[in-house]
């Protein structure tokens, strides 16, 4: 459905209460509606028209609040942004999370960060700013809050406890983390049970919250690029790419063809490395040591490949708005492709061996099942969603960087269990290697950088990061500095759905389900 069809339907339903505004060059369709209509419109887009919810962007203008709800659907449709404005002293908005469940955590975040209230939201409270450390009424994302003020020593309240949900005879809560298990990222889990099975799984996140969105404000785009690249190193290139693309949209420039292909090449190298690391995690969680070691060898080889090719093992310092900072040699790319071909061959061999390792399969099959309906209402993204029958790959749905020029299939499985997620990771790794080959073959001579001016304006950037759809919203102020940098990373969406997989499965399955869910705390906590 194109935007004129959409606006006709809107006009029929809500007459002139909703104003449509299309920006052809940004291919984004903005609908401004009164706050009261928001739940109805969100339900219509999400439930009837099958749009996916990408995230909520809250902006504090000098005089009013602007809340933008991002939706997207298919290649033919422009992404839709539902905009609600209200005066600054009116801080209550209707909640949409009863129908668009994916908005749940976005609303909790807005409550914590801006002090907004969402009417009808069931559970608001301890989320980003931990209640045992921070007093009530701290709203870090408001303009008057000084981000550079250093932290005063705060004494956590020792009597504070996470709320328990299960109230039954013999029920107990098992706390895990934030420091646990050797090399795990910092996160706390409260697993509630009356015996063998996990009945409720409540992850407590944001131990690693670094306030990227806040400290980005007022900095130059060059400085914010460093933040975009460094808040989650396992998908650094993807997030830097999404930032750069937002800058390019605002500046109205397109990077030269060679830069676009090299970006695809490196983004797929990162995806391949990430998927191999995720597979290593799964093998390790099932205590299949040899397979984990084999995967670790492949991961280190891919890290070295990135290091030899770009100078940095995690591909830092290469991207810039307008293209790339330096060119890569064609010969080096060809050698990298040959190396990935060999890595893929060995990965395929391991895949075959894993398919015949019954002790391994027993731990994955029919464990941690997420149904298609749940995956959709919770707005899961990436390989996790695709294992549950929800495909929506941004490389296909909202193509960027000439992805439409490459042939690849987004894999899909419908079982939604750990094994389906494993198969998706293997299939996507193979696709990535194939895209790298195509991008390498399509490299043309030419420059890799176009100057990208820092003009005032705002734009959405997106990228299919290794863990799924990543969106960012960037606003540049009149003086060329960043006024708002909103991050909507895939892990934020998928952490919200983790309980779907872990609840009603045994305790000993928990680490395996966690490994197959392939979550990053750094990406979520940002």
């Amino acid at each position, binding site marked *: 459905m194109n935007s004129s069809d959409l606006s006709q339907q809107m006009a029929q339903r809500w007459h002139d209460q909703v104003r449509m505004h299309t920006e052809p060059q940004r291919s984004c369709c903005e609908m401004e509606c009164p706050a009261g209509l928001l739940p109805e419109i969100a339900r219509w887009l999400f439930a009837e028209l099958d749009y996916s919810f990408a995230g909520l962007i809250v902006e504090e203008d000098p005089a009013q609040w602007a809340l933008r709800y991002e939706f997207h659907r298919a290649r033919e449709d422009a992404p839709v942004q539902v905009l609600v404005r209200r005066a600054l002293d009116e801080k209550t908005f209707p909640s949409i999370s009863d129908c668009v469940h994916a908005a749940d955590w976005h609303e909790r975040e807005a409550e914590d960060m801006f002090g907004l209230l969402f009417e009808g939201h069931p559970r608001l409270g301890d989320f980003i700013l931990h209640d045992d*450390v921070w007093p009530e009424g701290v709203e*870090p994302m408001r303009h008057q809050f000084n981000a550079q003020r250093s932290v005063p020593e705060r004494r956590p309240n020792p009597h504070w406890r996470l709320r328990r949900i299960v109230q039954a005879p013999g029920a107990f809560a098992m706390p895990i983390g934030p420091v646990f298990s050797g090399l795990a990222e910092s996160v706390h889990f409260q697993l509630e049970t009356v015996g063998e099975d996990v009945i409720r799984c409540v992850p407590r996140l944001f131990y690693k*919250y670094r306030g990227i969105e806040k400290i980005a404000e007022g900095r130059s785009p060059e400085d914010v690029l460093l933040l975009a690249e460094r808040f989650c190193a396992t998908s650094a290139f993807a997030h830097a790419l999404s930032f750069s693309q937002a800058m390019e949209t605002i500046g109205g420039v397109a990077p030269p063809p060679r830069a676009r292909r090299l970006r695809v090449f490196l983004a797929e190298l990162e995806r391949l490395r990430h998927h191999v690391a995720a597979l290593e995690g799964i093998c390790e969680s099932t205590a299949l040591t040899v397979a984990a070691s*084999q995967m670790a060898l492949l991961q280190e080889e891919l890290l070295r490949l990135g*290091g030899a090719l770009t100078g940095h093992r995690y591909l830092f310092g290469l991207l810039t708005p307008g293209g790339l900072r330096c060119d890569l040699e064609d010969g080096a790319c060809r050698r990298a492709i040959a190396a990935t071909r060999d890595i893929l061959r060995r990965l395929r061999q391991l895949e075959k061996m894993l398919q015949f390792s019954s002790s391994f399969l027993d731990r994955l099959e029919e464990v941690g099942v997420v149904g298609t309906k749940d995956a959709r209402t919770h707005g899961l993204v990436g390989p996790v969603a695709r294992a549950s029958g929800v495909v929506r790959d941004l490389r296909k749905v909202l193509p960027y960087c000439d992805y439409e020029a490459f042939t690849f299939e987004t894999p899909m499985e419908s079982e939604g269990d750990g094994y389906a997620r494993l198969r998706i990771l293997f299939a996507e790794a193979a696709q990535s290697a194939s895209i790298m080959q195509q991008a390498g073959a399509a490299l043309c001579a030419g420059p890799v950088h176009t100057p990208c001016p820092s003009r005032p304006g705002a734009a959405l950037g997106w990228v299919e990061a290794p863990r799924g759809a990543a969106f960012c919203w960037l606003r540049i102020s009149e003086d060329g500095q960043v006024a708002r940098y909103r991050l909507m990373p895939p892990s934020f969406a998928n952490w919200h759905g983790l309980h779907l997989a872990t609840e009603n499965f045994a305790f000993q399955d928990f680490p395996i389900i966690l490994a197959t869910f392939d979550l*990053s705390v750094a990406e979520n906590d940002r």
Partner: protein
Amino acid sequence: MSQWVRIGIKTRIKTTHYPAQAETAPGVSPGLPQGGAYAAADVSSLVNLCPTKAISPGLVKDSLIVDYRRCIHCFRCVHGATTPLRWEKGWQWAAGGQKCDGVASGPEGNRLGRVFARSVHIIVVDAGDCGACLNEVKQLNNPYYNMHRLGFFLTPTPRHADILLVVGPLTEHMRLPLLKTYEAMPTPKRVIAVGACALSGGVFGPSFISGAGVGQALPVDVQVPGHPPPPLAILHGLLVAVGRQTPATITSGAPVSLEATTR
């Protein structure tokens, strides 16, 4: 299951020979910029290129000092410069603690000593890391680096740990878990701060939510710079902590007194 045994044997030994021999494989380290003498015209432009103020003019005329605690591998002093900064692809970067700045303060200094030389247990605390440092520490467990051969072991409990390895700028929410972990460790114990974020706050701190490194909360015995430090650099840091390798300096191109220049 015999297939797994077979593939394990067929893979043969992949482990690096470091520290007995140098590792020469490409891509093991991103390297670090080098200070020292530079042309007068380049000094100020190179200083301005650095977003984290890691590069500063030296005390000697026409020279530069690079503070590795602040270098975040953005490569702007290379890709953006008319005369790029010299880079060296080494990895033996680990320096002594913040108090003694790479100089051992006694016969044993702040090292763990011989008793621990071949059996050291390490607990890792993620204090707001982006995932890179943690992943590089993880690589030490893989066959390419295999830190077990050198007597280093990871432990999930602070009660068994001799070394606290901290990554990340120390976020406000991780301050208490970090301090609790440190207090739960038996003495003697040592702290290794890994990565530019843990040493200076990196691009994140200091701010309302993250600190300017681990040194604000704990006494740091070994500093491993890099963003992230490659596995070999972290291995070097571990070897420095037990006195099996000599520490490097945390700055490059510093003339005499570090105290005077790195402030």
